[in-house]
């Protein structure tokens, strides 16, 4: 019996290490393919190079980095106020029936495949942008708009949780001092839930940066430095997604290298989010 128990524990330990193993494998193989190329060209010319012409051996990903950040920034610009507003709504001002509908809506939104969002953006938003604002329609603006909807569930649910976790005395105390409901929310509750809300934004940012399929369908994929919101562009993710199908040799390695950069950026963001949420708990 004793032996069996020890045996079971050892097996479970091994199983539990599967996550770490997978993570290590991912890092090992992706870095293994990508780092040699970055080393060969030189990190500076890889990260800051503006020309991406694989057939000529030019592998500069600055346009993609800029594209990624523009699209994400735009998504956050719209997503944060909208998401916060919905979180406040769910927490403070909703009659229970509407609240339930909104919550189910958010859950469904979270479950819709990203390709469907991309598709909708392609057939509805892109023509709209093209007709009303000019440009090819396949643009950073369209991408940001769709992306903001996609990150809404993340921002809303985590912000709502942070607001709900606040001690009720905060609200009661503020109202007792004569503040209006809105003043209480704006000046007391939101600052108090600050770290949770920021964590939700960072996670939303991570989600936005990692989105691939919808962005391929909407962004237009022009490989040049974007200069306005109406320009087509590429992100780090779409760069990989579009060309991986036919890349080989150095070209393929360059795509893995793009993946390395993406990996780093998102790991940093996620660590930030974890640190912040730990501060919230303590």
């Amino acid at each position: 019996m004793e032996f069996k128990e020890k045996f079971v524990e050892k097996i479970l330990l091994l199983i539990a290490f599967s996550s770490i193993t997978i993570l290590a494998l991912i890092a090992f193989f992706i870095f293994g393919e990508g780092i040699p190329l970055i080393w060969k060209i030189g990190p500076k010319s890889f990260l800051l190079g503006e020309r991406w012409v694989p057939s000529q051996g030019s592998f500069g990903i600055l346009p993609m980095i800029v594209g990624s950040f523009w699209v994400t920034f735009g998504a956050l610009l719209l997503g944060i106020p909208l998401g916060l507003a919905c979180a406040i709504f769910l927490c403070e001002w909703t009659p229970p029936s509407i609240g339930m509908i909104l919550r189910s809506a958010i859950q469904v939104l979270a479950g819709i495949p990203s390709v469907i969002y991309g598709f909708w953006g392609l057939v509805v938003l892109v023509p709209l942008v093209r007709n009303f604002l000019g440009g090819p329609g396949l643009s950073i603006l369209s991408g940001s708009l769709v992306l903001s909807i996609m990150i809404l569930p993340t921002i809303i649910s985590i912000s709502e949780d942070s607001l709900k976790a606040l001690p009720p005395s905060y609200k009661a105390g503020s109202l007792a001092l004569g503040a209006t409901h809105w003043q209480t929310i704006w000046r007391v509750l939101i600052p108090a839930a600050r770290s949770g809300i920021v964590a939700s934004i960072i996670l939303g940012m991570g989600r936005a940066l990692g989105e691939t399929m919808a962005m391929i369908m909407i962004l237009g994929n022009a490989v040049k430095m974007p200069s306005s919101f109406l320009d087509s562009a590429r992100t780090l993710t779409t760069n990989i997604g579009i060309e991986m199908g036919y890349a080989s040799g150095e070209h393929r390695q360059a795509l893995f290298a793009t993946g390395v950069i993406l990996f780093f950026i998102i790991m940093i963001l996620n660590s930030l989010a974890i640190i912040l949420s730990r501060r919230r708990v303590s």
Partner: protein
Amino acid sequence: MKIRQTRYLTQMVAKILIWIAAFFTMAVMALIIFQVLSEGLPVLSPGFFLETPRSMGREGGILSPIIGTIALTVVAIIVATPLGIGTAIFLWEYTREGRISRIIRFGIGCLAGVPSIIFGLFGFVFFVIYLNMGWSILSGGLALAAMILPTVICTTEEALKAIPYSFREVSYSLGGTKWQTVTRAVLPNALPGIFTGIILGICRSIEETAVVILTAGSSLIIPTSLFSPVRTMSVHFYILAREGISMEMAYGTGATLIILVLLVNTIANWLLNRYIRHRA
């Protein structure tokens, strides 16, 4: 009094804006789903589900993508479930605190944050190339399993946490060993929660596209073995839409996807509600 008026004015403005925001969100969701369903539902027919795609998907149905989706999801679940449940049991019943637990949790947290395209790259270089499995159901299923593993672990652990300590105490006091206690007193009662996690994993597998394209290929032929390349519905949808092959077929596939996701979501919620009511 002027200050008071401004305060209440601000509140009213804020309230209106927030209500608008909330309804905007609901409207957008309705719009998206309505758009795809209204164009897509007319396309659906028994033939649509039972025929394979012909001429690159312009005609016929979506049988092979359906089979592909099912095959990949099944492989992913078969691999991820024991690994996920085992990890959760180890973390909650065997260690709790301690350095090992922290390392493992860190790994799970990181894994959860990796974007899908990276899983695609990893699946490609590791399963397709290095392990020489080629573009296949096996490669795709294993890559998907890696992706949904954190989800299964977290929901299982929550389910284990919800079991009251007294169950375990009773089992130990009756002479149970740790493993007996886990398998007889804890797990049977945690099953509904665990099942919810599995369903969440199924949802993610169905909708995942980037990983699948890079690991399972995009063949339209009905697969014959675990090593056959295969296409899933979301991949099919993506290719149809992006290559402009057939808007009609795309809408049909999209509608199928949405209905499937809504269905699975509803089942999961219904299960969760039964579970909560059963506990209370």
